């Protein structure tokens, strides 16, 4: 496994272009994100937020420009970045026939986490034992989303990439998610997530990148 170096920059994009079927979903995005930062990506639909996440996850190829994640050059090597990534995409990545707990357990076994971690993650996302033992096929969208988040928590990745993690969650779960993301950053992980949420009062606003037309249009630092 590639060692994570001590460099303080987690992500460095320079004029990154990602063409999907000839369409530049990212049209020259430049941004630098430090280790342990919490970053929200905002912007209208189709401005390249998801593509930026997928680029950082090593899932889509870089067409032009440069992109580095943990000192790995994405132009050369997308595969070794993936080991450090925890991804929550548009879709949840769950197995319909498995129960909520089995899905989380599957991730836990893969990454060598303990059974205790599974129970902790399920509890934090308020997945009760009835839901946990139901096949995810039969769960509601919000319950499925929470199961996917529990898997992500168990995963303990270096880089968390979440696409609309708040969507479909109730208010309590959203607050809990914010706490989880903050905890992740304080333990050294870097977190990027996209959101359409309007700011809720009484909550710290993280660093926010506004995307427009496939580029980073503005970058507003964290406000307390």
């Amino acid at each position, binding site marked *: *496994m590639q060692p994570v170096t001590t460099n303080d920059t987690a992500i460095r994009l320079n004029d990154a272009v990602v063409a*999907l*079927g000839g369409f530049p979903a990212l049209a020259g995005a430049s941004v630098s994100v430090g280790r342990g930062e919490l970053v929200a990506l905002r912007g209208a639909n189709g401005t390249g937020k998801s593509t930026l996440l997928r680029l950082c*996850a*090593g*899932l*889509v*190829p870089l067409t032009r420009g440069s992109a580095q994640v943990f000192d790995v050059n994405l132009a050369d090597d997308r*595969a070794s970045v*993936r*080991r*450090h*990534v*925890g*991804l929550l*995409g*548009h*879709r*949840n*990545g*769950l*197995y*319909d*026939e*498995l129960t909520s707990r*089995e899905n989380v357990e*599957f*991730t836990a*076994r*893969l*990454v*060598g986490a303990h059974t205790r971690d599974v129970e902790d993650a399920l509890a934090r996302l308020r997945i009760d034992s009835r839901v946990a033992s139901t*096949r995810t096929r039969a769960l509601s969208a919000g319950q499925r989303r929470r199961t996917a988040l529990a*898997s992500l928590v168990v*995963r303990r*990745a270096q880089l968390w990439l979440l696409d609309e993690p708040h969507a479909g969650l109730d208010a309590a779960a959203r607050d809990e998610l914010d706490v989880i993301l903050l905890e992740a950053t304080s333990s050294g992980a870097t977190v990027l997530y996209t959101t359409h949420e309007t700011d809720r009062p009484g909550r710290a606003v993280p660093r926010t990148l506004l995307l427009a037309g496939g580029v980073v249009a503005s970058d507003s630092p964290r406000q307390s």
Partner: protein
Amino acid sequence: MKQALVVARKDLLVEFRARLLLVRVIPFALLVLVLFAVALDSEPLILRAASGLVWLTMLFSTLLLVQRTYDVETQDAALEVLLTSAVEPVNVFFGKLFAAFVQLLVLSVLLVFGAIVLYGATVSGSNVVLLVTIVVSAAWGLASVGTLYGAVVANMNGRDSLLALLALPVLAPLLIGASRATEAAFGSQTIDTASGWAWVALLAVFAVVFSAAGAAAFGALMEPEA
């Protein structure tokens, strides 16, 4: 290695829950055996064709199973999560291979019994060992080719027909080898047991070659489509 077993266990659990093998593949395979018998409509001819029919049916059932195992991975984008979760691709390959192997083993045992019951094929005492070796090595070969080429087409449109186009020519040696060896095990007049073992050697080489090739190539092939 541990990760491979975790993946295999997951695949088998999903299959056990969905009961696809039981509900769709096994009935399909047995139905094909019956239909062949009806189509050929001649008992000596059926007996002569029995081993070939068994393995031809296995080939098509493999396509069904492989499509299914990758459908499970792609329908909710689980494959992307798997790719981005510190799992070595080679472990995903062997995990899926092993799960497919177990299912194909069950299916081929059933089909051999089907041939014995429906077609009147016979296996004398010493040929049982030969038959078991054939079934194990052929099932492993089918599983490795299926898992490998299933990965090539996993994210493509029209993958079902493409999988058949890619995998079937590759499986030709396996079809020939397994059919002839099984013919020998069924006590055919045209092939003796020694030749049967020669074919098993080919099956073993085939299984080893494509397991190794799959282990080497799987990581590069497992690319999500944009």
